[in-house]
């Protein structure tokens, strides 16, 4: 489904502080499975997720999505792919302060040109599904860590994407909440979603939900399989 061919990412190219985050990685990610990129901080996991999620372009190499080469697509198309194919769960949650949890979750659907009422209906339905309906109208900054993460999950699912990308999703959660999160992932996988996670938390990569663990170190893949 997603294929990386000799992907390299260099930051600050040509400058004294040039830094290569990803060294020619080739990787294939299967649809409908849960794949975890495992590795220490600074190993290039997040960069890899950004490249796969069309948030940044590789310096060299190619990325294929559903057999379509996406690296050379113009920004507009990348945004469209990002909006329709991927749902992101960020490490820092990245909710916008000052607006309600529901509004935060609805944001990815705004540019679709859908009726506000139908976006809201869908959002409320997802809030019910993830047991956070009572928090729908709370301001983002009033949410606890677990609640905030559920809101980011709802936001990620808003446009019904086929791939969920989560970067260190349990970094700010205690064990109980982390296990709850893995349960949610299980449900999502059962719904046919492709899951791609970056984590160095054993609760994540040792979970039964995960089909494949890819070890990443110093921008290179160390080995594949679980």
């Amino acid at each position, binding site marked *: 489904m997603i294929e990386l061919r000799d992907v390299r990412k260099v930051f600050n190219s040509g400058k004294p502080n040039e830094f290569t985050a990803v060294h020619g990685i080739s990787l294939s990610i299967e649809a409908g499975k849960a794949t975890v990129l495992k590795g220490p901080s600074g190993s290039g996991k997040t960069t890899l997720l950004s490249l796969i999620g069309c*948030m940044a372009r590789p310096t060299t190499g190619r990325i294929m999505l559903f057999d379509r080469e996406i690296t050379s697509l113009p920004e507009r198309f990348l945004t469209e792919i990002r909006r329709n194919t991927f749902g992101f769960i960020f490490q820092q949650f*990245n909710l916008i302060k000052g607006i309600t949890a529901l509004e935060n979750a609805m944001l990815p659907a705004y540019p679709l040109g859908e009726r506000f009422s139908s976006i809201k209906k869908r959002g409320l339905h997802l809030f019910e599904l993830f047991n956070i309906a009572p928090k729908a109208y709370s301001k983002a900054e009033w949410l606890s860590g677990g609640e905030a993460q559920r809101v980011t999950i709802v936001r990620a699912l808003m446009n019904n994407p086929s791939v969920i990308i989560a970067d260190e999703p349990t970094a700010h959660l205690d064990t109980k909440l982390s296990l709850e999160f893995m349960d949610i992932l299980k449900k999502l996988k059962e719904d046919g979603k492709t899951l791609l996670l970056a984590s160095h938390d054993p609760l994540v990569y040792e979970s039964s939900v995960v089909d494949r663990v890819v070890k990443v170190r110093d921008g290179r893949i160390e080995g594949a399989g679980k």
Partner: protein
Amino acid sequence: MRKWIERHRNILDFTLSSLLRRKRKNAALVSVYTLIVFLLASVLFFASALREEASILLKEAPEMIVQKLVAGRQEPIPVAYMERIRAIRGVSSIKARLWGYYYDPVVGANYTLMVADDLDVAPGSISVGEGVSRVRLASPGETLEFRTYQGATIELEIKKTFSSESGLVSSDLVLISEDDFRKIFGTSEQYATDLAVRVRNPKELPTIALKVAEILPDTRQILREEILRTYDAIFNWRGGILLAILFGAVLAFIIFAWDKASGLSVEEKREIGILKAIGWETSDIIRMKFWEGLVVSLSSLLMGLVLAYVHVFFTSFMLFEPVLKGWAVLYPAFKITPFIDGAQVASLFFLTVVPYTVATIIPCWRAAIVDPDSVMR
């Protein structure tokens, strides 16, 4: 099309809640912005309303006034001159006018005394403007005392008070009979204050004025257009002085607005990153900022305009009255006829809304074209 409208509606909805999130900051900005528009619009409204007032006032004025000059000063003009002017081809009518200024020591104010033949003011009576009636606390039926040029006192009864379309003319006006006028000022019957000339074809006016100058070299001819031009110059000059004073305030605002609009806070940059990461296009973000700039500047413009309108036309330009109206003891407490010059409102719009909106968009565009992966870190 429907999709496009919904997209804009959704983005506008988010923009409005964004604005509410930074309530204090935006409220401060809108207040300062409104104040500046209010000041500028007040001056512009007032100056244009006064010009309009002057043209209402002069609409009925004679096309030409002939005055006698002696050593460069105006003197009473011999009534006999009328025949010589009437003989000029193109002159349709000529009328001798009697008017002058009268200083009232009781209130320390000057009145304009004028003989109005057509208004039928009987000897012994007068009609007064509302300003005179106000300062003298005199209403119809009461009498006002006038001192003649010889020091004697005559009492004249107020028949009625009046106001006209323009408060500027009528406020200090006292309409008086010819007999009483001559008694007070001692003007002989062979003389008038000036002569009002009407012509058949206004295009011939300059030629007729030249002819008058030829046959009566001791007179000057004042054309209606010249008076209008003088009014224009005076109001523009006064408006200009006020604008120059306001220039500092405007400049400070421009710097403030530019700083606010063009600089993005870390928080705002982060938000743009989030929106891009979750699938907003650069154009969506620019659209959002465009709406934000437009909402702030347009609401400030409208509020400023409404406040200026109230200030100029309902409170008679309370704040800057002395600068623009001139000085007088007998101030006409007049309400200016509401008049707004569309071109001025348009220029205010282009000077405020457009640059502000552009200033909001540019930094966002710069922030929005970077890769959204910054939010991943």
